[in-house]
C-alpha cells in the first residue's frame, strides 16, 4: 500500500516528507480530502482502503474519551549533529503535522483498562526514530514500570533518522533495554505494526512485543523494497513484506482491522490484568 511516494528507500533511513492535503487511495485510486479522511478512521470513503493514520487520530480511536494524559509533549530535537538542512526540515515537519516529533506518548484507559500508549506518526519525517522518539519511549516505559502499566506501542516508521547519525542508531539500544526492563518486571508489552514499519524500528522495539499485531496490508520489513531490489536484482513478489506475508512466515501474532484494534487490545489487556495485579501484590 504505497500511499505516498517516494516510500522509504533504505533500511534505517527516512525520506523527506510533507503532509498532503489530498490523499490518493492505493486500493481504488480515488482521491479524497485528507481532513475528511482522518475524521473517518483514515480510511478511503470509496472502498475502505487504509491511509496512514496521524498519531492523534489513532489515540482518539484507541483511548477512552478524556483519559489520555500526554507525556514529554514538548520534547523536540536539538539537531545534535548540526546536520545539513535538518533544522529546516524539522521546522517544516512541525508546522505540517502540529507535532514536536514523530511520536506521541502518554497514559490512558482502553475499555477501562489502564495502559501506557505510544503512537508513531509517519507524517512527521516518515516516522523516523531519532533521539526524541527514543527518549519518549524510554520515559514512557519508566512510567509504565513505576505505575505497573502494560505498554502499547503503535509503530509507523521508515527507520532511524539519519540526520541524527549514531544518536539515532543508539535509540535501538535504548528502546530495547527499556522494553526489556518491563519484561523483567512481568509487565505486558504489545506492539502494533502499521504501514510502514521498517529499518531500525522493525529491528528493535517493534519486534520485541510479547504480542505483535499488524494492520492489514501494512509494509513491514528490515530493508525497504528498493534496497532489496537493488541487492538481489530481481522483481519482488506482490505480497512480499506485507503484514499477511509476515503472518504466514510466523513473524507476527495476528492481523487486526483498524476498526477492531481497540477491542483486540482491550481483550489482550483483560487477559493480562490478573497477572498485573498479582505481580503488584508481591
Amino acid at each position, binding site marked *: 500500500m504505497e500511499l505516498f511516494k517516494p516510500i522509504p528507500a533504505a533500511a534505517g*533511513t527516512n525520506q523527506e516528507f510533507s503532509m498532503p492535503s489530498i490523499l490518493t487511495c492505493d486500493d481504488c485510486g480515488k482521491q479524497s480530502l485528507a481532513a475528511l479522511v482522518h475524521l473517518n478512521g483514515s480510511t478511503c470513503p470509496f472502498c475502505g482502503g487504509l491511509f496512514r493514520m496521524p498519531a492523534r487520530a489513532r489515540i482518539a480511536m484507541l483511548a477512552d474519551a478524556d483519559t489520555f494524559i500526554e507525556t514529554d509533549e514538548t520534547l523536540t530535537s536539538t539537531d545534535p549533529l548540526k546536520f545539513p538542512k535538518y533544522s529546516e526540515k524539522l521546522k517544516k515537519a512541525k508546522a505540517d503535522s502540529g507535532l514536536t516529533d514523530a511520536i506521541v506518548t502518554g497514559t490512558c484507559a482502553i475499555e477501562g483498562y489502564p495502559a501506557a500508549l505510544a503512537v508513531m506518526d509517519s507524517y512527521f519525517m516518515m516516522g523516523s526514530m531519532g*533521539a526524541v522518539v527514543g527518549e519518549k519511549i524510554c520515559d514512557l516505559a519508566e512510567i509504565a514500570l513505576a505505575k505497573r502499566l502494560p505498554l502499547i506501542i503503535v509503530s509507523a516508521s521508515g527507520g532511524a533518522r539519519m540526520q541524527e547519525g*549514531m544518536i*539515532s542508531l543508539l535509540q535501538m539500544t535504548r528502546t530495547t533495554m527499556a*522494553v*526489556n526492563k518491563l519484561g523483567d518486571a512481568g509487565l505486558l508489552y504489545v506492539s502494533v505494526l502499521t504501514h510502514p514499519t521498517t529499518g531500525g524500528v522493525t529491528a528493535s522495539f517493534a519486534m520485541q512485543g510479547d504480542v505483535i499485531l499488524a494492520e492489514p496490508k501494512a509494509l513491514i520489513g*528490515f530493508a525497504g523494497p528498493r534496497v532489496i531490489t537493488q541487492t538481489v536484482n530481481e522483481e519482488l513478489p506482490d505480497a512480499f513484506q506485507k503484514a499477511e506475508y509476515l503472518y504466514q512466515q*510466523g513473524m507476527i501474532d495476528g492481523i487486526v482491522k483498524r476498526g477492531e484494534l481497540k477491542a483486540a487490545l482491550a481483550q489482550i489487556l483483560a487477559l493480562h490484568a490478573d497477572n498485573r495485579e498479582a505481580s503488584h501484590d508481591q
Partner: protein
Amino acid sequence: MTNRQTKGEQARAWDCIKNARLQDRPQTRDYIRAMADEFFEVHGDRTLGEDAAMVTGVGRIGGQVFTIIGHQKGHTIEERKLCNFGMPHPSGYRKSMRAIKQAEKFNRPILCLVDTPGAFCGVDAEERGQGNVIAEHLSCIASAKVPVISVVIGEGGSGGALAIAIADKLLMMENTYFSVITPEGCASILFKDASKAEIAAESLALTPADLIRLGMADGIIREDDDFSLDNMKGTTDRLKAAVLGALAELSGRNPEALVQARYQRSLNMKGF
C-alpha cells in the same frame, strides 16, 4: 595499506571509511589468531544453518577464557562469497545468540569484533525475519549477565553491526567507522547524489573520535603505521591490553548490576 592519515591528526571521516573497507585489512579470524592462545569455533544456529559471515567460539586471551563473536568478510574472492561479504543472514545472528547464552551459562565474558557493511538485505533474509532476529539479538545481548566488550575492527554498518556492539565497553580501532547508514546511501537519499558520499560521511559523525565525543565509545586503539595482516602484533598487543583492562574494570560486578549499568549507560546517551 594506503590513505592513512598522518599521525596525530584526527582522522577524516572519508579516510576512516576507505581504510575500514580495505580488503587486506585484518578481520575477525586474523584478530583471533593474533590475540588468542587457543580458539574453539562453534558452528550452526540449530534452526536453519551455518552462516560464515559470523564467527563464534570460545577462546583464551591472556589467560582469560572469552566467548568470541565477530563478523567475517573474507579476504579472497572465494572467502568473501562464502562470508557473503560480511553481511550476516538471520542464522548468523541466531548462532551468535547461542554463543551469548552459552557465555552466560558458563559465566565467561563476551568479546565482540564488529566488521560488517550491514546485515544482509535480501528476500530470504526478510523471509526469515531479519528485523525480528536483530531485535531479538539486541535484547539478548543487552540483558546478558556477563561482561560484554565490543571492538569495531573495520566497518560498523548500522543495525547489523549494532547487534554485537551493545557493550559495557566499546573500543574502536583507529581506522574504522560506525554509522547509522552508509555515506553513499545517505548521500543518495538526502542529497539525491551518491557522489556526495564524502560530504555525507563528514556530516554523519561516524569516526572513532566522533563516537568518543558523543559518549558512545570508550577508547580508540592506535594502529601501527605498518599495521597489516603480516604485522599485527604491536597493534593487537595494545588491543589485548585494552580488552583485558576493560574486563578487569567490569569483573567483580554482580550480574544484575552489570545489566543495570549497561541500561544506565544507554540512558545517559541521550542525544540532547
